[in-house]
């Protein structure tokens, strides 16, 4: 090993940490039952790596080196309540020791995902905690995605870690019979991470668009770690279906039927459909498979130029039974608009309560009013939808419709 340039050592360390972050934190937390201490130990190990690697060379197995260093840092922190800086002289010896370690660590990431949705954690903090604990995202970046001040997000995350410690949360791999009851919550938190990514129009907010890739990573991880469960496959299928359309949006907002389907990632769509078929073969239909199926029908419809609305109506009715939500009910009203016309769609929209602050409700209302020839009502509804979106690209799309509506009247 020749000592690399400091930049190269730093890049190697960062790559190793990025690739291994969730695995190492999960393993350390499982040993000590303390998430905050595990993260501290890993950052101490990274600091040691940045001091040692430029002089001694990047070890053959950076992940193993970091693990050994982090274990020592955690040990020192516990034993002497001192910083692990005292351990630094030992660390230069670690390179050879770590190379002798086996390649594979036991994978406790599933335990970490489950710990993040512990009942002691406020539901609103579960997804941010997952993004930090499993992916190592900074509090600042998470704060931007959730529109919360970075100081507040930092406090919430550290309070959540304290709660986990106080509640004696287990971080080790859950037993198979423990997985079932908590799985819906874990999937919910992964979906929330994905939604943050895809609500952002690519190009308009790169930090949030990145989050879509991170969410795919979480969903892949969950599906890999629970191979005998159909719903995580459904969740991954759903996220891939939506992600596959991104190239066609190209920084603008476009409805599915307006997109150039040639630009879609067809291999990703194929994979999403195969996952859905695998899930369906397991014989337990559920909310995420249902949502993935809805997206699959939309994709197919846009590619063929003819959407199977009756199939969508059936799927939306199923979704409403499995997991009723305002977004789902609004999407169901959009199907009603195509099948039964604007009057029926307006009646369905009027039946929803608490929708006054929901942008898609107003956008669909505008479309239904337009089909009834009510230009004034359409313009008013478009105006409300515009005021409710924070997305510049969507605002521009709504503004274009508004100006068309006023020209035609």
């Amino acid at each position: 090993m020749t000592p690399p340039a400091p930049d190269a050592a730093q890049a190697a360390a960062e790559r190793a940490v990025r690739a291994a972050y969730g695995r190492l934190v999960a393993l350390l937390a499982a040993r000590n039952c303390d998430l905050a201490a595990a993260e501290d130990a890993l950052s101490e190990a990274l600091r040691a790596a940045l001091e040692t690697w430029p002089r001694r060379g990047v070890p053959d197995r950076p992940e193993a080196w970091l693990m050994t260093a982090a274990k020592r840092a955690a040990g020192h922190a516990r034993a002497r309540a001192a910083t692990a800086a005292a351990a630094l002289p030992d660390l230069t010896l670690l390179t050879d020791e770590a190379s002798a370690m086996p390649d594979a660590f036991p994978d406790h990431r599933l335990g970490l995902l489950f710990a993040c949705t512990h009942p002691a954690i406020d539901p609103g903090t579960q997804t941010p905690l997952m993004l930090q604990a499993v992916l190592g995202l900074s509090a600042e970046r998470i704060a931007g995605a959730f529109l919360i001040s970075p100081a507040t997000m930092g406090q919430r995350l550290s309070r959540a870690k304290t709660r986990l410690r106080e509640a004696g949360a287990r971080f080790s791999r859950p037993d198979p019979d423990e997985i079932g009851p908590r799985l819906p919550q874990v999937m919910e938190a992964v979906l929330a991470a994905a939604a943050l990514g895809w609500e952002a129009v690519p190009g308009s907010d790169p930090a949030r668009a990145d989050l879509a890739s991170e969410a795919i990573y979480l969903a892949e991880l969950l599906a890999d770690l629970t191979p005998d469960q159909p719903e995580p496959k459904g969740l991954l299928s759903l996220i891939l279906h939506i992600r596959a359309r991104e190239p066609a949006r190209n920084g603008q907002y476009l409805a599915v039927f307006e997109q150039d389907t040639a630009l879609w990632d067809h291999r990703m769509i194929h994979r999403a459909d195969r996952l859905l078929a695998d899930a369906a073969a397991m014989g337990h239909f559920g909310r995420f498979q249902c949502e993935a199926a809805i997206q699959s029908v939309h994709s197919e419809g846009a590619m063929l130029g003819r959407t199977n609305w009756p199939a969508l109506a059936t799927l939306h009715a199923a979704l409403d039974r499995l997991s009723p939500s305002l977004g789902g009910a609004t999407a169901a009203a959009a199907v009603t608009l195509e099948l039964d016309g604007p009057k029926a769609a307006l009646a369905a929209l009027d039946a929803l309560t608490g929708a006054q602050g929901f942008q898609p409700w107003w956008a669909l209302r505008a479309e239904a009013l337009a089909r009834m020839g009510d230009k004034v009502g359409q313009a008013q509804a478009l105006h409300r939808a515009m005021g409710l979106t924070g997305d510049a690209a969507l605002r521009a799309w709504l503004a274009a419709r508004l100006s068309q509506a006023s020209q035609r009247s």
Partner: protein
Amino acid sequence: MQYMILCHETPADFARRDNPAEAGTYWAGWSAYGATLAQAGVFVSGAGLLPPATAATVRIRATGRTVQDGPFAEVKEHLGGFFLIEVPDMDAALDWAARAPSSATGSTEVRPVLAMPG
């Protein structure tokens, strides 16, 4: 709690106000935003401001009183308008601030209003 939403706009934003091709979309965005604040029941008050070139700044120092043309400082973005809203907490205020058209082009600052005793 009351929060002040301070909408800082870029020179390009101010230019859109007078460009016939863009003015319609520009004003529609702001009027939609203001109307939505009102309809959500959070609007307390608010106003748009004329461009920074119309400003004058007063200072009183030991050497006397000066009046200077233009805004108080040379910066890339200038206050283009403000809204005073009544919402439960900072998170809710940030949520509304993100919907202001200035967030996508310039910046939108949120400041809690100092509570007056009595």
